[in-house]
């Protein structure tokens, strides 16, 4: 089926206004929040119902045309990057809140529903949706499902997988199935558990049932500033081992503070402190005050320079904006950045940060640190300038080196952003060939033709060396012309050859 024919068929299903196909209209879709790799999709379509998604997928499946789902495109590992010239199925227009059940604490949303909007819509009833990735004001719940997104409050409340109980899924052959269970545990294999975090490789969620929670009775937020990262790290360990489970425990280093203080979300951090901790406790009013006091005391025990409890909602909101906008604020101090998403045991924090500082020195690239300290989930932000030849690659290699350190101390290469295309090779730090094969075997059950978001999440075992060689050759000789003039996939020809 040639492209024109495909466009005609897609237009038959969706009408002319919901299909983008002209080359230049597609450029804006050549990457998501991860900008180090880009490629142009074949088309972008905007379905608004499950049936439309199903009809589109059936058509593409029948004609063996690769496709992938995309939410708001705020992902940070390239999960929605169309490296194989896919048709992008944008779920941005499927953004309705379908149902709220306050008695049973459930809400059903379409995948394009914005995370924070759900909380806003149910706030009147004293409820909220707990997973709160930093991009929650823009990211979609469908995207959160695909990436198993985390957020600052996952320390106490868990990541997305703990909050999604069921979903309607369009399988890669176009069939519609329901997985999970509205109440209680689902029988048989835990398919909803499998779908959450599958990065769009097992199908496309078109209606998602989530748990909603009652807002805690009281919240206290503590900000603590330290002269040394070690003191801040030790406070984190101390708080956790004392038995208190804060709702959130976040850390930023000086470079991150500098960036965000240059933005609209100015807090005014002293320029001579090494780290700032943001610790939040919530729960019943009676206990919260006491917990906050204990935390302040523990901060003092670890030589805190300054510690204070937020005096108003406005102050608390500003502190949180400052933390949540930190990634986006990197543009204030660098033209490009690559965010890593390593996980480590909390007790190794100081040691790992020292190693990251070494890596920064060796590479010559600045690294700012923003992280969910309580979970041991680090976000080293590697600052680079893509306009300088070789810097993108250097940044990627630096990121990989950081992840190696995380894996080596017993952690992981992703806490919440997913593997995408960014960390494919780094999967090997954690899994051997047999383990990867098992994962691919599962994919092949749902997605036997590998048409749905191919080439993401799991690397092909034993192909590594060949793929690498092909990519290097391709990069050296052809990337510039083939990659840019056509603006189709940069990877796919090499990939196909390697296969």
């Amino acid at each position: 089926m040639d492209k024109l024919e495909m466009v005609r068929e897609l237009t038959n299903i969706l009408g002319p206004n919901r299909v983008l196909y002209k080359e230049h209209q597609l450029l804006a879709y050549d990457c998501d929040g991860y900008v180090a790799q880009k490629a142009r999709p074949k088309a972008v379509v905007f379905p608004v119902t499950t049936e439309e998604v199903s009809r589109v997928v059936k058509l593409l499946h029948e004609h063996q045309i690769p496709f992938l789902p995309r939410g708001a495109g705020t992902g940070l590992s390239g999960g929605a990057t169309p490296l194989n010239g896919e048709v992008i199925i944008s779920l941005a227009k499927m953004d309705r809140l379908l149902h709220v059940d306050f008695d049973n604490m459930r809400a059903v949303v379409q995948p394009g529903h914005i995370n924070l909007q759900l909380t806003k819509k149910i706030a009147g009833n004293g409820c909220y949706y707990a997973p709160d990735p930093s991009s929650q004001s823009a990211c979609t719940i469908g995207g959160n499902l695909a990436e198993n997104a985390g957020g600052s409050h996952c320390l106490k409340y868990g990541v997305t997988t703990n909050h999604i109980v069921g979903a309607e899924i369009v399988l890669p052959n176009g069939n519609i199935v329901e997985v999970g269970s509205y109440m209680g545990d689902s029988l048989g294999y835990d398919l909803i558990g499998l779908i959450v975090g599958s990065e769009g490789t097992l199908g496309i969620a078109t209606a998602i049932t989530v748990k909603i929670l009652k807002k805690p009775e009281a919240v206290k937020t503590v900000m603590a500033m330290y002269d040394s990262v070690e003191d801040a790290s030790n406070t984190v360990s101390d708080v956790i081992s004392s038995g208190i489970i804060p709702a959130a425990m976040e850390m930023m280093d000086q470079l991150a503070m500098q960036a965000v203080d240059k933005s609209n979300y100015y807090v005014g951090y002293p320029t001579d402190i090494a780290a700032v901790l943001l610790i939040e406790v919530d729960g019943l009013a009676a206990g919260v005050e006491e917990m906050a006091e204990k935390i302040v005391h523990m901060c003092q025990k670890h030589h805190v320079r300054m510690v204070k409890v937020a005096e108003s909602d406005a102050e608390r909101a500003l502190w949180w904006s400052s933390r949540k906008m930190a990634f986006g604020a990197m543009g204030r101090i660098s033209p490009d950045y690559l965010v890593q998403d390593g996980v480590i045991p909390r007790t190794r924090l100081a040691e790992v940060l020292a190693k990251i500082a070494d890596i920064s020195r060796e590479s010559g690239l600045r690294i700012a640190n923003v992280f969910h300290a309580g979970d041991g989930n680090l976000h080293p932000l590697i600052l680079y300038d893509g306009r300088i030849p070789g810097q993108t690659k250097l940044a990627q290699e630096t990121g990989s080196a950081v992840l190696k350190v995380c894996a080596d101390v017993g952690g992981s290469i992703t806490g919440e952003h997913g593997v995408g295309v960014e960390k494919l090779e780094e999967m090997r730090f954690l899994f051997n060939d047999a383990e990867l094969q098992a994962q691919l075997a599962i994919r092949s059950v749902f997605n036997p033709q590998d048409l749905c978001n191919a080439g993401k999440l799991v690397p092909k075992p034993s192909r590594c060396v060949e793929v690498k060689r092909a990519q290097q050759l391709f990069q050296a000789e052809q990337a510039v012309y083939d990659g840019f003039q056509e603006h189709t996939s940069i990877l796919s020809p090499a990939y196909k050859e390697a296969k």
Partner: protein
Amino acid sequence: MAKAEADVSLLQLESAFKWPDAPDEDKYSVCVHCGFCLEVCPTYQQLGDENQSPRGRVYLIKSASEGLLPLDESVIDPVFQCLDCRACETVCPSGVQVGALIEEARGQVFYAEPAKGMKGAVQKLFLRGIFPHPNRLKMVGKLTRFYQKSGLQAVSRKSGLLKILPKQLREMEAILPEVPATSALDSLPERIPQRGDKKATAALFTGCVMDVVFSDINRATARVATHNGLEVIVPKQQICCGALQVHAGDREQARQMAKHNIDVFLASDADYIVINAAGCGAALKEYPELFRDDPFYHEKAEQFSARVRDISELLVEVGFEPPQAEVKRTITYHDACHLCHAQKVRSQPRQILRSIPGVTLVEMPNSDRCCGSAGIYNITHPDMAGQLLERKMDDVPEGVECIAMGNPGCMMQIMVGVHRRETDLDVLHTIEILDEAYRREGNE
């Protein structure tokens, strides 16, 4: 580790922006593509299309600048579909100046393909033929007044003659308030003494549309300012600020107008330049951007802009007297984009409204989402403007009698909304309500 790398720097392509004053790299390279801007962008909210989002538009501008895109519809359409409302700038953590990038890109389009045919003729007539010339503008005002007063309006409404006009113009005709006989620029004395001790001198910028359609608001502004110890001067040589020209991409014409105003106002001895139209206020404050490449006028523009204040901003800055008399009204406030996003003036108008005894201020949800007026956007893009107006009218809280705001464009647009819904909501400028309170005080 081998990853395909998009190394743009290897490409020596020619920029699609071939004319002076193009969007500069320093502005677009700040964008890190995080996407925080998406959900506050009115056109993205309506369309869900990345091309019609701030991040997408900046990406397209960057690509055109790097020669990866020609200056064709793929860039022009998104750049002109943008309302230039700047909501994205309010949330952007990296501080991307999307408004300036859009305006500069429009400048390139203006150079590349001057609008032709009917659209071009209309554009040329208004942007170059009428607005820059105060006397011609007054003539338009007089003609409109003649049309309204002579019975011609009644005849043309009755005869169905208006049906030849597009719907949005027909609606504008229907809601257009009665044009006052004289403009404030003509009728106000050159120097109006303050009441009591003098706090400062403020030069009143009377604007173009504001002074033709809503010149009473200018007079109210002068009264309110003098009531609060500000000596008001009205420089008679001033002309339109050029905001509409900037929005349309006619930057050269805008620069000529800006130069004229800068010289006129700097020659006066005013401490402040006071303005009551959000769009004009933003344009005046951003004159330096127009003269990036002109060191002489850049410096003068900086001096000029440093003195510009919105009337609500100025009243709070110098301290205003809370009125004694009651104005019994339930009011909701609409944040004009160029007041809240471009000028960051949000709290002051609310502070003024809350200071008036008897006023109940009910917050409108998403009060800072664009109403769709956006200069002449409601005429160039009636569909999108109409959708946004519907959303705005849906957001008006129940039980309010009046919507207050600080921009004439929004006032006319929301009047159309009121007309469509057939409600009897009043659409007023914030300062009119304060003025009403002061005047009642005088009568008590």
